[in-house]
């Protein structure tokens, strides 16, 4: 790898619009974001695979941690929301939770400091995947009456249907995936900008006015916000997975 490529991978942003660019570095448009996605995929695979490589009666320490988290997603998110039959959707929910968790935690990982989910492509792709899943589940379970039931709630007067049908069409099939993607993206980007502001303030005070009173306050804020961002990263992975489960549940029980 030559020096200019490395310099582009460790990119220094010029302004805020840089967050929306997608500069290609390696062939096939592979840049730092894509490399980090590969890293998160590998981390998810190893995290779920290594502790259970050899079957053991008593799991290792790492195995206990992974087991607790997987049980949380299986029972706390999938089973409690979808109800019986939730095992059919674990292939989507469990890897998605861990993948998002790793992508979000890159925000505060030292030397990386970049939330991959703050590039719109990744949440948008996942939201489209979720959209396809819940529409497919509904169509498979109820046939074409899924569309009818999700557009026309029971017990609505005929005259109001003129209003209700467009609202439901928008909210179910358009706003749902958009808000799912935007929620994750905007949360991560807001946290990233907040961290950048406080750390850059600290750095510039440190360089231009090296008095402890000047840069101690933004540094303290930056440390507090770093702790807050760990919470946000976990919470957003949880919310994304939970909403996926809720949407799948609403497709299964569309008559209610």
């Amino acid at each position, binding site marked *: 790898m030559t020096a200019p490529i490395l310099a582009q991978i460790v990119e220094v942003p010029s302004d*805020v*619009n840089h967050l*929306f660019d997608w500069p290609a570095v390696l062939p096939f448009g592979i840049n730092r974001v894509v490399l980090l996605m590969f890293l998160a995929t590998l981390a998810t695979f190893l995290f779920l695979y290594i502790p259970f490589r050899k079957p053991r009666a008593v799991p290792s320490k790492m195995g206990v941690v992974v087991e607790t988290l997987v049980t949380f997603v299986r029972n*706390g998110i999938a089973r*409690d*929301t979808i109800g019986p039959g939730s095992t059919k959707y674990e292939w989507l929910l469990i890897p998605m939770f861990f993948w998002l968790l790793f992508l979000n935690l890159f925000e505060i990982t030292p030397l990386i400091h970049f939330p991959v989910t703050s590039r719109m492509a990744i949440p948008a792709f996942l939201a489209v995947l979720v959209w396809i899943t819940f529409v497919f589940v509904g169509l498979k379970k109820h046939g074409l009456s899924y569309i009818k039931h999700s557009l026309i709630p029971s017990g609505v007067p005929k005259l109001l249907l003129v209003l209700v049908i467009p609202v439901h069409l928008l909210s179910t099939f358009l706003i749902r995936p958009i*808000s799912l993607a*935007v*929620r994750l993206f*905007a*949360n991560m*980007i*807001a946290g990233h900008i907040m961290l950048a502001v406080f750390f850059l303030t600290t750095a510039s005070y440190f360089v231009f006015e090296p008095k402890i009173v000047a840069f101690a306050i933004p540094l303290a804020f930056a440390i507090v916000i770093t702790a807050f961002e760990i919470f946000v990263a976990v*919470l957003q992975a*949880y*919310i994304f997975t*939970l*909403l996926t489960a*809720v949407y799948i549940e609403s497709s299964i029980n569309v008559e209610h």
Partner: protein
Amino acid sequence: MQADAAALIGAGLAYGLAAIGPGVGIGIVVGNAVQAMVRQPEMAGQVRTTMFLGIAFTEALALFGLLLFFILFGAA
């Protein structure tokens, strides 16, 4: 030039105004969730899940405002 200024003012107003409603809303959601948890501690787990769902739906509106800020900021 004046159009740019208008876009920048609009960007600031868009996010500021979009944060008012969800701020009040999240306060109501969490406050009532805490009340429910205190009154029925055995239901705390379910209440917490529902609270996070409510927060997520409410918060989305503020985040649309943030997105609008970026769009207007990019237009200026």
